[in-house]
């Protein structure tokens, strides 16, 4: 039977992990572990969705590229998504920390490590984009960087904080002692 996409991804992650000094990954989640991972990721996912909504409303909305504080729906959605993500980010990170207080299985820790790496990469890329926009004089009016850059900055802020939370969860899961192997009866 040909391997499906998930198996291929897991195989690649197994090959990449030793490069970062991480060993003994286990990506095979049970149903309870999958549900737990989904439950603890609810607030982080909401924060990321709010940033994406803010991004889409600045790029595609009728007032593209500026902070619009008007009564129309696009301004209100942008304001709610932008400031909501700002307010929710630290609560979401705290929820991941709080979820790590109990026992964290190695499988959940492994997926948390992947999530932390992905979020850190997104955060770094967004921060780099903000730096390039800030250096570009065409994107600055009146000494203020365009609002699109502010949303990229917000994306870096949200994903960076969430990466810290998931890294802690990964630490809790991957530092747990591995199950003992059975070597059969001693003679």
């Amino acid at each position: 039977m040909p391997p499906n996409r998930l198996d291929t991804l897991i195989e690649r992650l197994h090959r990449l992990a030793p490069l970062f000094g991480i060993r003994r990954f286990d990506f095979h989640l049970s149903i309870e572990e999958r549900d737990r991972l989904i439950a603890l990721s609810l607030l982080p996912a909401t924060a990321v969705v709010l940033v994406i909504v803010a991004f889409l409303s600045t790029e595609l909305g009728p007032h593209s590229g500026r902070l619009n504080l008007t009564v129309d729906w696009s301004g209100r959605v942008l304001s709610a998504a932008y400031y909501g993500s700002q307010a929710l980010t630290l609560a979401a990170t705290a929820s991941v920390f709080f979820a790590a207080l109990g026992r964290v299985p190695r499988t959940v820790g492994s997926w948390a490590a992947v999530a932390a790496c992905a979020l850190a990469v997104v955060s770094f890329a967004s921060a780099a984009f903000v730096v390039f926009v800030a250096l570009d004089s065409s994107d600055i009016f009146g000494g203020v960087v365009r609002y699109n850059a502010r949303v990229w900055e917000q994306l870096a802020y949200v994903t960076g904080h969430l990466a810290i939370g998931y890294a802690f969860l990964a630490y809790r899961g991957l530092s747990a002692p591995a199950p003992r192997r059975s070597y059969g009866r001693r003679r």
Partner: protein
Amino acid sequence: MNTLINRIARRLGIRGLDLDTNLTIADRDRMLRLSALPSVAITLLFVGLVMDIFFNTRTFDLQHLPDKWPTRIDNASSDAATLLSTIGTAVLFIGGASRVSRQLASWAAVFAGALLITATACAGFVIFTDLDTSAYSASSYDRFYSVTWEQLAEVAGISAIGYAFLAYRGLSGSHQPGSRIAERRRRDAA
């Protein structure tokens, strides 16, 4: 109350909470010291809130920007609250570097949970307030409620992270009598 908290903790997979035993005087003093900065940060938020209630400092009139002493106190207290909460979290992390007793960790877990609920509720309130049309008008933009709740969400959220780390240090099990690490430490000390 303790029974309810224990039941919720067990449901969340957090084991070993000990809220029944009283804190020792040393633990109580340590908790007070560690909680000083987060408490000051939350107090400063309320100072800003009082300034707004009595002097209307957070209604941004686009034609006449206010520059009076209540506005300056409001701005200073808000900025100081944000900065102090960050430093307070750092202090909580440093406080968790040394040994944390199970009783202290249990109370830290309760604080973390309460702050987490507060932060989430405030963030939800920010979203609904910003979607509300009554906060906007043609000439002024009244983000009074939104600004207040947003700052409270940030301060409570970052403090919850610090308390959760403190709770982890005490509840992680390495200090339990009989655990392998505790046994090894006892052997090394002997």
